[in-house]
Structure formats: C-alpha cells, structure tokens
C-alpha cells in the first residue's frame, strides 16, 4: 500500500486570542483527509472554514491541539516532513529586495539540494514559470502576477513530491491562470501530490481528482468530483414550440419550471420525469426542438452543503 503524501487524522485546533488568551476561536474540529501521490486534491470552503489553518498545520506554522498530520508518513513537527515539499501561500510577500533568481536560489539552498545542480535547476524553474529577464529584478518591482510566478518557481525547485497551493490563481491574468493549470496537470502526470486550496470552483472542477468541502472547521463532503456531483439532483432543459399559446396541463404538471423565450418555451424537467414529459409533449403534438441535460456544477453542490451551516463563520484571523 502506498504511503499517502499528505495525511490528516482528526485535526483539532482552537485559537486563543486576547491579551490573556481567554477568547477562544474554534478553527478545526476533527478534520481528516488524505492526498495520494499523483493526485490533485482540492480543499474548498467559505472564508473562515479552516482551510488556511489546515495548511498551516501541515507546514508546522500552527500547532494542532489534537490529531495527527503527516507528510509521507513523517509527522509534521519533524522538519524532515517538509523535505520534498513546495508551497505557495495566499498573497505571498517574499523578501522584496531579493530578485526572483536570488529568491529561488535561497529556496534551493534551504531545501538542501545538491550544490552542483543549483544553477541549472534555478534556471529550469524560472523558465517553467516564464519569468524571463524579469528574474533579475528585485521582487518589489513585480506585479502581483509576477510575484505569484516567482513563488511558484520557488515551490517547484528540486522537483517536489508534494505541492501545497493556497489560492494559486488569485491575482493572475488568464495567461497566468492557464500557466498554473498547466503546471498542476504536469505535476499530476509526474506523480506529484497537489493539495490545492481555492475559492474558484471552476478551477477545482477542471483540475481536482478529489475534493473536500470544509465548513466551520469540519469536512462536510469529501470524494471524487464524480461522486460529489452524482448526489445532486439532475435536470434537463427541453426547448419546445407549442402549437397553441398554452402547454397541455399534464405536461406543465411534470415540469419544474417553464419560461417563454420568444415563440418557444423552455421547460426544466427532473431526470426521472424526462421520459414521461417527452411522451406527453409528443403525444400532444408539441414540437420538441432540443433536449439538453443540465450540468450539475460544484457550485450547486457547494451551496447545498452550506445549507444549515452557521451564517457567521468565525475562523478567519488576519
């Protein structure tokens, strides 16, 4: 059995705030998930759900109260667990007087990689993120997108085994977003585990193999994209051209909704009623122009899972 690249078991964390540390904010309650090599795992959830806290525990930036977090079987309290890790934080602020080349070289040294390969490896990752000549400029002169590329280059140094990305596409233009997507897919192809934390559900849908939905410090849903979406109600749209102004009453009864679009009517019908609705429509002499399954989006699943969650989620700490 393969050792998971990332393993969280029953993580719990309560922040103690205030001068006397007497104010408590419950950030995580029993978060468990694994990410396997060659898998892109999306951690999604609203602000304050506990995504950043989970990532910080994995990086040993925040100490968990209970539970275990391991990377390739090594507890995260051991610095060796971060050997072979690449990380891009949300809104990173690197050492701004260093150039991207110097920053990536620093990351190379900190990763304790072979000195002889440093130059070639630094140039490889800088080329991969397409920073070009700008790599010699101090990072303080960079745009937000360029900073993100420099951080990505730092994360890719030394061919990591696991990459953690916290909102990697925020602030990037479409070309930059495409670059990040390509890099994530490349990483997956080469067997790297990617833990990907974002608000952009379209990115999750297109990139992730598995997703965990974190709400108020606990995981509400977890599974493959297909399994998450299969639980949701599926519907179909039927475009018809009725012979008269009104649709037959027996057809209207089978539809979730109907909307007049010029001379046509757009009906929305649940999956299990589709055949019956079509039969009634054809039987009534209504001309069926188009039948189209409605794609169940992750957003709908996300909103469904959010139902009943506290309206004020409280873990966000700035």
């Amino acid at each position: 059995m393969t050792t998971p690249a990332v393993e969280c078991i029953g993580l719990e964390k309560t922040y103690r705030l205030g001068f006397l540390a007497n104010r408590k904010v419950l950030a995580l309650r029993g978060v468990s998930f694994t990410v396997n090599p060659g898998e892109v795992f999306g951690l999604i959830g609203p602000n304050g759900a506990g995504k950043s806290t989970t990532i910080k525990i994995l990086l040993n930036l925040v100490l968990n109260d209970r539970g275990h977090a391991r990377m390739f079987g090594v507890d995260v309290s051991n610095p060796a667990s971060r050997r072979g890790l690449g990380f891009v934080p949300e809104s990173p602020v690197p050492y701004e007087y260093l150039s991207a080349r110097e920053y990536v070289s620093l990351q190379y040294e900190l990763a304790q990689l072979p000195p002889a390969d440093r130059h070639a490896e630094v140039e490889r990752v800088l080329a991969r993120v397409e920073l070009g000549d700008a790599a010699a400029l101090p990072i303080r002169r960079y745009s937000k997108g360029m900073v993100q590329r420099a951080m990505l280059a730092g994360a890719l140094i030394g061919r990591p085994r696991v990459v953690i990305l916290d909102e990697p596409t925020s602030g990037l233009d479409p070309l930059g977003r495409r670059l990040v997507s390509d890099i994530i897919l490349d990483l997956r192809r080469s067997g790297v585990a990617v833990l990907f934390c974002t608000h952009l559900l379209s990115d999750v849908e297109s990139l992730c193999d598995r997703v965990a939905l974190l709400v108020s410090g606990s995981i509400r849903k977890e599974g493959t994209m297909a399994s998450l979406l299969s639980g949701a109600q599926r519907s179909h749209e039927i475009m018809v051209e009725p012979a008269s102004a009104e649709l037959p009453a027996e057809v209207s009864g089978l539809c979730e909704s109907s909307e007049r679009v010029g001379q046509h009517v757009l009906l929305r019908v649940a999956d299990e009623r589709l055949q019956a609705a079509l039969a009634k429509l054809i039987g009534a002499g209504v001309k069926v122009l188009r039948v189209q399954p409605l794609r169940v989006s992750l957003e709908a699943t996300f909103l469904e899972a959010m139902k009943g969650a506290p309206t004020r989620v409280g873990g966000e700490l700035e």
Partner: protein
Amino acid sequence: MRPLFALMWAGFIEARRNRITVVVAAFAACLILLTTVVLNSTVFTLGRAVTDFGLGVMSFLMVGLTVFLSGGMLSSEIEKRTVFLIMSRPISRPRFVLGRYLGTVLTLTTLMAVMVVLYLSQLFFFEVPVTSAIPAALVGLWVELALIAAMGFFFSSFTSRIVSAISVVGLYFLGHAAPDVHQLSLYAKSEVVQAAARVLYRIIPNLDALDFRSEAAWGASVQASDVLIASATAAGWTLVFLVGAALAFSRRDFR
C-alpha cells in the same frame, strides 16, 4: 550549515539593499563635520575630542541601527508572512532564528568595519595615537551590538516591533546603569530597595562593562583580561537571549 548560511546571506543582502548603508554616510558626515569644527577652533585636547567623538557617534548610530534591525525582525517576518516561505522547507524554528540573527550580525559587522576604517583614517589625519584602549572600545562595542541584537530577537519573538524596540532600549539603558544599580544594592537606605536592586543587578546584562570609550578618550590602558571577561559574560547573555528567542518562536502559532 548550508541553510543557515543561506538565511544569513539573504538577511545581509536584504539589509544592504534596504539603504542601511545610509548609516555609514551619516557617520562619515559627522566625522567631516567634526573635522571642520576642530580645524576652525583651538582645541586643547584635540586627540581626546577626536577619539571620544568618533567612538560616541559610532556607538550611537550602531546601537540605533541594531535596535531598528533586530527589534522587529521576527515579528515582521510573521506579519509579512515571509516566514511561511522559509518554514515550508526542512528548517527548524531555532535554526531559522539563528540564521536571521547571524544575518543581522553580519550586516552590523560589515557596517562597523567600514566605520572603523573611516574612524582610524581620521585618527591618522589628526595624528592621534592609537592606544590599546581604542581596539578594546571597538571590540566592546561590537560585542555589545551582538548582545543588543540578541535582545531584539528575544523580544520580537513574542511581541510587536514597537514593544520590542521599547523593551530593548529600556534594557540598554538599564544595562549601562548596572554599576549604579549595584551601588544601590549595597548602599540604599531601605532594605527592600537593596533587595530589589540586588535582584535587578543579577537579571540585567552589565553593558557598562563593555564600554571602554572613556579609557580610549583619556588614553588609559585596558587589560586584555577585562575585555575578555566582559566579552565572555556578554556572550553568555547573548546565548541566553537567543535560546529564549528560539524557545518563544518555537511555541508560537503563525496565524
């Protein structure tokens, strides 16, 4: 050792590009100003004035810079989240503290070396003899700076930049008042004050023991053993503050 050296070098590069060298320019400007004043007035004790002024300005600027650099070092690393990028590598928190501390000391040492060259040039220009107390004063200042930097790291490991800077400045003045505190512990009328002064004397580093400026100004001789003992004691305090900084930093949540 490579990560430690890399952290130290990155800290040095950052400080150098952050226009820290302006401190050297300020020092040079002060020396030129002194030269102008001295050449346009009759100073009976020229050698003493030049020696004392140069050491005094160097000490003032370097102590201020040390408080500025070290007082907010760790707290700003957390506030700016630069620490996230470093800690994502196999680096322990104590090693991170040590690497950043060594970077600060390297920056201070480089700047002080440039200042010393300027200072000795001025002594040469005015034909002021370099007595044994001048190297002692310079070594004492360097050791003091390393100790103040460690204090700054200690306080910034658990407080904000401003609180840390105020604490370091307070401890700096207390440290220089250590002989007075000692006198108080011996001769205060109240026994409570004596006891409090005794405790205070034991828990503050004696920075006055590292100050050989007046000996340098007066051309008095300084025993090497005095410099060594004061430096060794300060090194012990530096270690205590660094261990404290590493422990406090290791227990923090970087929210």
